[in-house]
């Protein structure tokens, strides 16, 4: 094969691409507007199941016994309702969003950094909470929030919550840290051993720190940053970079680093600390004085689902006291259902995860998708939208 053939093929591909790209320059794909969504919720009543349900879930949220035969709450649901469940798990909110957009799923467990995108993109429908009896027992601190409710319309059922804590290796940190400062400041003793979360939404963690250390920036909601505030957060992240050992995306990797001491401090989950401590008390977890970001996941229903009855049966089942308790323990989060706290196998589960302490959650800022229209109510400025968060994060990580 000679050089010119290879080049010719390359040129051919490029030319064909340009031609196609140019031709269709006028059309736009549907469903992409940022206008307020308008759709009506299912009126009910919830009747006979359709026999099938496609579930898109965080790993550990919809266990069917295939990972561990003892961990299975999907099979009882199938027996009870006749809805055959197909589970697909995803690794990141972006992946979940992408899969929902492409269709084929009836329900999804969406974190706050995906839920609003799903609502505004028109991929999910409002949820009629009166058709979900267990909704009544859900902690009020999780209801009608920015990430699950738009203009007073509910778009999903809260599932559970957790805070993104400061995790630390006890050998490296003789006294328990009370501030995020060693993860951010250049003179940190943890230099070279810091582990931040590898996702654009982590920019909000920088904003949380800035809320405490640079009050004159006027940040009140870490997901609602105008250009100046956003730039300050990015600057802080640049400052953090030399401190970083590894960014983490899977918690097994982070737990391994924290337990061995190759990571001194990191932002992570209570669950990660529990895992790292399975071999001994090596890792601590704390919510520093500045507050923390957190997540509250929401079960949402796809707009064009064909299995609406099965979907509503699932929403109710998954937040029922016993099942919600099982999931909360397996996944390591605070349950959404108040009654679940009495049903956990570890009596201290709710205390350990602060499920009932609404005070604890006041300075936990749940993941929310940043939008151009500021979420904190400001109308005199526009805020940096999520796409630019991703773009800035990509640049930061590649540099």
């Amino acid at each position: 094969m000679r050089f010119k053939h290879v080049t010719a093929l390359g040129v051919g591909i490029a030319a064909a691409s340009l031609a196609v790209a140019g031709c269709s320059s006028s059309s736009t794909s549907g469903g992409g507007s940022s206008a307020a969504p308008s759709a009506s919720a299912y009126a009910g009543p919830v009747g006979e199941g359709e026999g099938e349900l496609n579930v898109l879930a965080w790993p550990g949220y919809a266990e069917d016994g295939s990972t561990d035969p003892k961990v299975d709450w999907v099979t009882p649901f199938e027996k009870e309702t006749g809805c055959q469940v197909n589970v697909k798990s995803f690794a990141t909110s972006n992946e979940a969003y992408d899969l929902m957009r492409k269709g084929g799923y009836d329900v999804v467990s969406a974190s706050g950094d995906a839920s609003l995108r799903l609502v505004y993109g028109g991929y999910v429908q409002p949820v009629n909470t009166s058709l979900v009896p267990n909704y009544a027992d859900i902690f009020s601190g999780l209801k009608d929030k920015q990430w699950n409710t738009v203009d007073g319309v509910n778009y999903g059922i809260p599932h559970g919550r957790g805070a993104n804590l400061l995790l630390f290796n006890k050998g490296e940190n003789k006294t328990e840290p009370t501030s995020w400062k060693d993860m951010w400041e250049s003179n940190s003793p943890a230099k070279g051993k810091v582990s931040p979360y590898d996702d654009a939404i982590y920019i909000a963690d920088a904003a949380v720190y800035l809320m405490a250390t640079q009050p004159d920036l006027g940040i009140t909601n870490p997901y609602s940053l105008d250009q100046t505030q956003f730039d300050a957060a990015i600057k802080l992240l640049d400052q953090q970079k030399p401190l970083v050992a590894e960014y983490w995306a899977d918690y097994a990797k982070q737990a391994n680093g924290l337990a061995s001491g190759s990571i001194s401090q990191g932002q992570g989950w209570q669950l990660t600390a529990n895992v790292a401590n399975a071999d001994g008390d090596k890792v601590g977890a704390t919510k520093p004085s500045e507050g923390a970001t957190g997540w509250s996941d929401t079960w949402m229903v796809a707009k064009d689902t064909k299995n609406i009855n099965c979907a509503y049966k699932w929403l109710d089942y998954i937040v029922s006291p016993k099942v919600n308790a099982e999931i909360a323990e397996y996944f390591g989060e605070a349950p959404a259902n108040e009654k679940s706290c009495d049903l956990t196998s570890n009596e201290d589960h709710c205390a350990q995860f602060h499920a009932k302490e609404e005070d604890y959650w006041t300075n936990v800022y749940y993941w929310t998708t940043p939008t151009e229209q500021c979420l904190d109510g400001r109308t005199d400025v526009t805020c940096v939208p999520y796409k630019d968060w991703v773009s800035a994060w990509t640049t930061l990580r590649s540099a």
Partner: protein
Amino acid sequence: MILSRTAKWTLGAVFALVMLFIYVPLLVVVVNSFNVSLTFQWPPPGFTMEWWARAIDNVGVREALLTSVGVALIATTIALVLGTLTAVALTQYAFFGRQSISLLIILPIALPGIVTGVALNTMFTSWLGGLTYLTLVVAHATFCIVVIFNNASARLRRLGGNFVEASMDLGATRTTTFWRVTFPNMRSALVAGAVLAFGLSFDEIIVTTFTAGPGIQTLPLWIFNNLFRPQQAPIVNVVAAALILVSILPLYLAQRLSDDQTGDR
């Protein structure tokens, strides 16, 4: 080849070192399958048989294994047909565009998996109605073609045209010649190619992530989903250790098969 004693010893030493390089990590996998630590602390704080017991009970692993074998078998079969056809065409005919075709065959493996994955994902989801079992098989078959093609055309080139000509001189048609002369001579190369293609498909994760439909779990996907759940990660080591042990035999047989034909007699 006449090699000096020193050369032989040096090469032997390099071989031993590379084997060490290859097998120490695999040994770590096997040891970790007995490690009590959920985060694979090293040295292991203790040993347990629990993971092996739990892996044997695990339905998910068995189902994923079957899915993987199924996908790899179908993909390899498709690749065998397409790869052999192309190899015959490209070695026996000279024609305009031959170069471009051999480049096209190489592309699916030469372009990074993530490019192939994203490209197929975009096409399947936005134009062909979503991901299924079939899309996964199609993706795997596509990058397996090149392996079969490589093996088949190498053998065909070595075979040369003499046998074919002799056969046709003796009055056989092209079809008869193919089945009676060409194919039997290619068989061992095809088997070796098929083993490689099967292995390639069996362990593929990147393209698989982008092309598997909902609810379809190949073994690498199962491993991917489970490695990130600490309760499950040790079982993954068991599965990997078992795979290593189980796979030595077929590879050995395949190697003998292709060696019998090519060995420097």
